[in-house]
């Protein structure tokens, strides 16, 4: 057995069913071994697509996604996808081939120092020098990627190591992971938990601030129980969307730079903020000096380094969200909070989310798609205005069903991520909301989708613009629009045809629902192009340096 075969055996032992990859010289041994392995290989069209697909797969399957690339340009094409997974704490294993050990460091053909390049964007990485290390390294990589705060791990393997003979890894006896410097703490400190519950009992205006940590920890049921028992409204970050049912009366929806008025007002007026699985990122807090000024802050997170990094914390709790919430539930009594509930209801009534009704908008389409598919579909997005509108108007009820690039904001993430989701969930409905700009960054992945017969439902908002940047220029550059007009877009109908994708077009408000229904009834892959106005803005919006309560809304 050679190193490549051992690698695949070890992946298999870790439950890997499929790999998203692209071949090349230094990974020939892996591709050869794949022919005899039960692991499926999904050939993408560009390595960045492999990384995003592994990301989408991980989020939908609830286990690490695996991507594979050759040395040099293959490896560097993964970089954006690795950084993206790192920022959103997505468990992923990236495997790269490397030039033979004897040539490492000589600027050999297709040599790049990918462990060096990915040092700041991986949770950990390995350069394997001996095939005998493969079982341990793979075992550690999966452990590191999927425990604690999840994240990407890269394994770089020189070609000669892949070719070298080694012992067959023992299928029944996985190596025991023993990493002295890696012992994530999952149990919250009991006295801090008591302190937090005391604050909950004393609070008059509590708010739960929820992030992706709840989804990673699968703690939505516990969160629901806490929120409903103590009547605490729930605001979420972009990563936290869906962790708490957005159609529930206690849901405040998205908070932050483009948060709902009621979420941002509630946080600004709160006397207690309980942040769980969040990192108080700048998009969520606005100007941090003005953030939740009247509130004591409890912060629960698995990553100790997040606590106190951005916001000053009164009660820090390091632990797994689910385990800590279970402890909260043992101590928290039912509470009414009548006044606060009335205030929240009044805000929702008087400061609702709005969009213009006199012409076709992305918001209307997204809201309609939400009404047609809520609770059953997975929804991926690209990055831009359409992304934020999806976050605001779809109304997600299912934890993890909103698949977006939050921390890095990577245009081009959507389509390959949707491919990964659909691969993990072949029988479910997968919707992609994308923009004309983002779509053109990775649209070659249509090829991957068609090759695998994925019945994706693509909804493409064509405003002939990089709308989100145009919006920034509107607010920050005195409406001097520069480099944001897509003066040439392809005929998306012809593009769809070229790929054998059923195409629909929406240009009128009264056609929205009927066209969507027709498209969703189609059993194969569809593309619905929606003609929208480039002048439309994402509201609410909080401008730079402002507090969350200083939001601008749609008039």
């Amino acid at each position: 057995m050679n190193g490549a075969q051992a690698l695949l055996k070890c992946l298999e032992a870790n439950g890997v069913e499929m790999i998203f990859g692209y071949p090349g010289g230094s990974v020939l041994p892996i591709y050869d071994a794949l022919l005899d392995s039960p692991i499926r290989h999904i050939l993408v069209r560009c390595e960045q697509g492999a990384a995003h697909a592994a990301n989408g797969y991980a989020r939908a399957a609830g286990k690490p996604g695996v991507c594979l690339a050759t040395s040099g340009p293959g490896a560097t094409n993964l970089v954006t996808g690795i950084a993206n997974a790192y920022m959103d704490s997505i468990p992923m294993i990236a495997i790269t081939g490397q030039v033979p050990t004897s040539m490492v460091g000589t600027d050999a053909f297709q040599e790049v120092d990918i462990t060096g390049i990915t040092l700041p964007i991986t949770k950990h990485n390995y350069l394997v020098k001996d095939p005998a290390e493969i079982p341990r390294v793979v075992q550690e990589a999966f452990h590191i990627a999927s425990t604690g705060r999840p994240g990407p791990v890269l394994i770089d393997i020189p070609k000669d190591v892949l070719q070298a003979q080694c012992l067959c890894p023992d299928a029944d006896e996985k190596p025991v992971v023993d990493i002295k410097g890696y012992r994530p703490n999952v149990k919250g400190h009991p006295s801090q938990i008591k302190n937090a519950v005391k604050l909950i009992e004393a609070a008059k205006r509590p708010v739960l601030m929820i992030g992706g940590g709840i989804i990673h920890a699968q703690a939505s049921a516990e969160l629901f129980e806490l929120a409903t028992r103590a009547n605490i409204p729930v605001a979420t970050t972009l990563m936290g969307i869906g962790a708490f049912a957005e159609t529930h009366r206690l849901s405040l929806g998205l908070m932050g730079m483009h948060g709902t008025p009621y979420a941002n007002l509630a946080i600004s007026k709160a006397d207690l903020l309980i942040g769980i699985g969040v990192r108080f990122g700048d998009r969520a807090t606005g100007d941090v000096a003005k953030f939740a000024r009247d509130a004591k802050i409890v912060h629960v997170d698995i990553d100790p380094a997040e606590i106190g990094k951005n916001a000053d914390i009164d009660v820090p709790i390091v632990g797994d969200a689910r385990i800590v919430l279970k402890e909260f539930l043992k101590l928290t009594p039912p509470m009414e909070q009548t006044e606060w509930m009335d205030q929240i209801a009044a805000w929702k009534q008087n400061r609702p989310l709005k969009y213009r009704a006199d012409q076709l908008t992305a918001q209307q389409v997204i809201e309609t798609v939400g009404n047609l598919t809520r609770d059953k579909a997975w929804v991926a997005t690209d990055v831009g205005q359409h992304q934020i509108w999806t976050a605001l108007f779809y109304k997600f009820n299912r934890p993890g069903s909103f698949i977006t690039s939050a921390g890095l904001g990577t245009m081009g993430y959507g389509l390959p991520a949707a491919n990964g989701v659909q691969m993990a969930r072949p029988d479910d409905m997968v919707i992609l909301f994308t923009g004309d700009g983002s779509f053109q960054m990775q649209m070659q992945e249509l090829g991957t989708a068609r090759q695998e017969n994925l019945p994706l439902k693509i909804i493409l908002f064509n405003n002939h613009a990089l709308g989100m940047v145009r919006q920034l220029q509107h607010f920050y550059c005195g409406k001097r629009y520069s480099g944001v007009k897509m003066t040439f877009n392809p005929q998306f109908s012809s593009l769809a045809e070229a790929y054998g994708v059923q195409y629909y077009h929406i240009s009128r408000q009264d056609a929205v629902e009927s066209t969507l229904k027709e498209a969703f009834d189609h059993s194969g892959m569809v593309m619905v192009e929606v003609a929208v106005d480039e002048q439309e803005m994402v509201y609410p919006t909080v401008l730079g340096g402002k507090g969350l309560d200083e939001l601008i809304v749609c008039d």
Partner: protein
Amino acid sequence: MRHTLSVIVENKPGILTRVAGLFARRGYNIESLVVGETENPQVSRMTIVVDGDEKIIEQVTKQLHKLIEVIKISDITQEESVHRELILVRVAADASTRGEIMQICEIFRASIVDLSRNSVMIQATGDQKKIEAMLTTLRPFGIREFARTGRISMVRGSK
């Protein structure tokens, strides 16, 4: 304030890059970093002197902990510890000043390790204060060059 962190890391290639990269990336101010073997061949000890307020030091420590190969971090700033640095200094010296320089060396328990017609090389060990004091005293003679290690430290008492 200056903090001394004693960091036990796995003795693996690349760990120095990981640590140094972390400091550079997050904009922390490293004053010195010394890495070397310990009694256990599987681990190395890094002594890192870093400047920053409590909040920064807390972040430095937490971020260091996130490196998989970092096993243990102790902030020994407040502890009774022995700190040592080593310095080699080449000082201008001719027959007329050599005697005085040798006296200074004696006071600082430094030794002369090389001699030429117009200079001497001095070796000294001690904590930072002592090294600084010696340099100040030698400066009037003309310091030609010096090379200095960073600080290594160990907590006093039985363990």
